[in-house]
């Protein structure tokens, strides 16, 4: 991952964009091709909206209604789908597990990454460069390469089938990316601030906690959100490390829920209700934090 374009995650400057717009729009506005292109984009947007609308609509229809005609509107509101889905899916327990796992892992990831990222960003020695490279290697290693040894390690630590085992592995897996992301933020903090601090007699440690961390808060929140988004949906590792339904995280509960729908007589209404139970909190978080998530994920790539 090349460390290019390190710029603080600034908000787009309207003036800047205004200039940009002038340079092109005059030419593009008028062309009919442009209109077609706009139309296509809006169609795609409509498609995305329709998908989620469809799921919500069908979550209050019965199985036979959906199969008879997937396109029609509900004849009556079958809200019991939601109650049934909630009971059969065990989402309550799974959400609790997911919250525990995601929150603990994300916080631990930041706690471990921030000092490492800071020191790597501010030290310019051969060793720090080697270390940075060593950590960069981990970003490119896909899960399937390490899942088997990870399973054995976790088994030997006696942490198989426990949330703790999952947390420890999640922390290890997300460190490299997070360190890189945070290093970018720390680099954007001017050295002068810390130099001033050290003139005041504060050590690196104090400078880090009193000056750098508060300044890099937005970067760390971004890193936190990114980790949460990733951890919330993680399936592969959870599938391998968690066996008991008591300890399953949300993606596992969702997979099991699909299986239940198939064996206990298919009920697509209930399945859609279950899907919506999963979607609603994500949607709420997105509406609330949407810009932050988008910026975070984008800045992550721009580091």
């Amino acid at each position, binding site marked *: 991952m090349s460390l290019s374009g390190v710029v603080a995650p600034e908000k787009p400057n309207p003036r800047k964009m205004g200039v940009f717009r002038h340079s092109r729009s005059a030419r593009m506005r008028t062309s009919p091709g442009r209109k077609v292109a706009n139309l296509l984009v809006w169609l795609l947007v409509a498609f995305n909206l329709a998908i989620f609308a469809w799921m919500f609509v069908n979550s209050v229809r019965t199985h036979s209604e959906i199969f008879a005609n997937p396109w029609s509107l509900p004849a009556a509101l079958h809200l019991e789908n939601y109650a049934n889905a909630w009971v059969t899916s065990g989402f309550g327990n799974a959400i609790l597990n997911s919250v525990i796992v995601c929150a603990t892992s994300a916080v631990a990831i930041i706690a471990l990454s921030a000092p490492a990222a800071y020191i790597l960003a501010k030290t310019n020695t051969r060793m720090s460069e080697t270390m940075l490279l060593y950590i960069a290697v981990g970003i490119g290693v896909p899960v399937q390469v390490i899942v088997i040894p990870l399973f054995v390690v976790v088994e030997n630590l006696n942490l198989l089938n426990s949330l*703790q085992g999952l947390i420890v592995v999640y922390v290890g897996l997300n460190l490299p990316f997070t360190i890189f992301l945070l290093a970018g933020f720390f680099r954007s903090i001017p050295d002068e601030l810390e130099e001033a601090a050290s003139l005041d007699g504060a050590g690196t*440690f104090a400078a880090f906690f009193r000056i750098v961390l508060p300044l890099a808060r937005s970067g760390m929140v971004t890193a936190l959100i990114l980790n949460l988004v990733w951890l919330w949906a993680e399936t592969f590792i959870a599938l391998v490390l968690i*066996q008991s339904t008591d300890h399953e995280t949300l993606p596992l509960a969702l997979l099991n829920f699909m*299986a239940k729908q198939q064996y206990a007589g*298919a009920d697509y209404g209930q399945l859609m209700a279950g899907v919506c139970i999963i979607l609603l909190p994500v949607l709420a978080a997105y509406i609330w934090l949407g810009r932050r998530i988008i910026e975070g994920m984008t800045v992550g790539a721009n580091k």
Partner: protein
Amino acid sequence: MTRKYLTTLVGVCLLLTGACSSAEGGDGGDDTITYWSQWEKDEPQAAVLEDAIESFTAETGIEVEVEWQGRQVLQKVRPLLRSGDVPDLVDSSSSAIRATLVSADAARDLSAVFEAEVPGENATVGEVLGDYGSLITADSLDGPFMLPTITLAYSFFYDGASHPELAESPPQTWPDFMAMLQGLKVARGSGPVAVDGDIGAYLGVWTSNALINELGEGGFSELIADETGEAWRSPQVAAALEQIAQLPADDVWAEGSFGSKFPQIQERWAAGESDILLMGSWAPQETKNSTTGNFEYRQFAFPEGSAGQFTQSDVTGFAIPTDAEHPEQAEQFLAWLTRKDVMTALTQDALQLVTRMDLEAPPDIADTKRIMEETSVVRVYDGVDGDYPGYVTEVFEPINKQLMTGEITPETMVDQLVSAQADYWARQGQ
């Protein structure tokens, strides 16, 4: 400063490891057995078991903690075998228990259960159950490795109300069968045979039955035992595969059979959109909600071949991992499950064929019971899936699917099987 930092660090580590060491929980006390079930919580089998657990606990004071894991239960138990942190009781089909627990030497010898008395009855468990000999025993163990509770058998299901003619004269030979399909297809105007083509096993049992019909019991299994794979090149195999190849050639599949997700096609069959379904005896339980009008579940046997007429059958039931913490209590519970009232509930509420000989089959699968008496009963896949873990999913089912959709000819299938099987054996390598 450094020291303060280090203390924080050590604190964090302690927090992590402290949390870790308190990890294991929920195993309960001495009088709680943990049971991981192959059923889903809202299946009728689960309801029957919950009632049985309630009466068992009332009688003995032993609690049973259930996790409704679903059919993938052994996939979840398998990784725990080495650490020994396993449930006290699991249930699955005999071939799955054989492939996972028995093959890893992790199944307890259940002789004691068979010798125990059925609670409240004057007979031992072994006496009230039928004889399932080779289905539940293995060379590596002296006694049975599982307690079978439900018998499964594959046969052709149809609606007796709309096809009384099939009840009167079911097809006896393969040509009869194909002629019958042709008739049904003409009458309906579309494919009469329902199959959820995304489930490899529902396709595999067709070919497997045809092969056993030509090769006899153990013949299919012998093909797999050949590490070169060359055993597939035989005239009997060719004859069996030719039969199967006629199915796509005559275009007998119901619309959507290979383009939908399970259980759509079997539900549409139950709703009257196709005529016959080769399925295990659990079909009525799974499809009952989709039937309309006076649907009447009837079955006929897979037609005979040159080696005889065979019906593929398996049992499902309970096994105790060797590392179980409460094996005696689990055995007590197993004896409880063989009581007449529990088994009757499995028959009547869950519509299953049970392993107790003194109980009637539920009317919906009475035909299956008769078929099992009239034809030779063999293990599903001739036991291949239990004896050769991974073979059917890695080698047989993917290639077989291509035959059944008409993508490849029997000759190509044999060529592919020979080389895939040789590689399968190389992978098992010593």
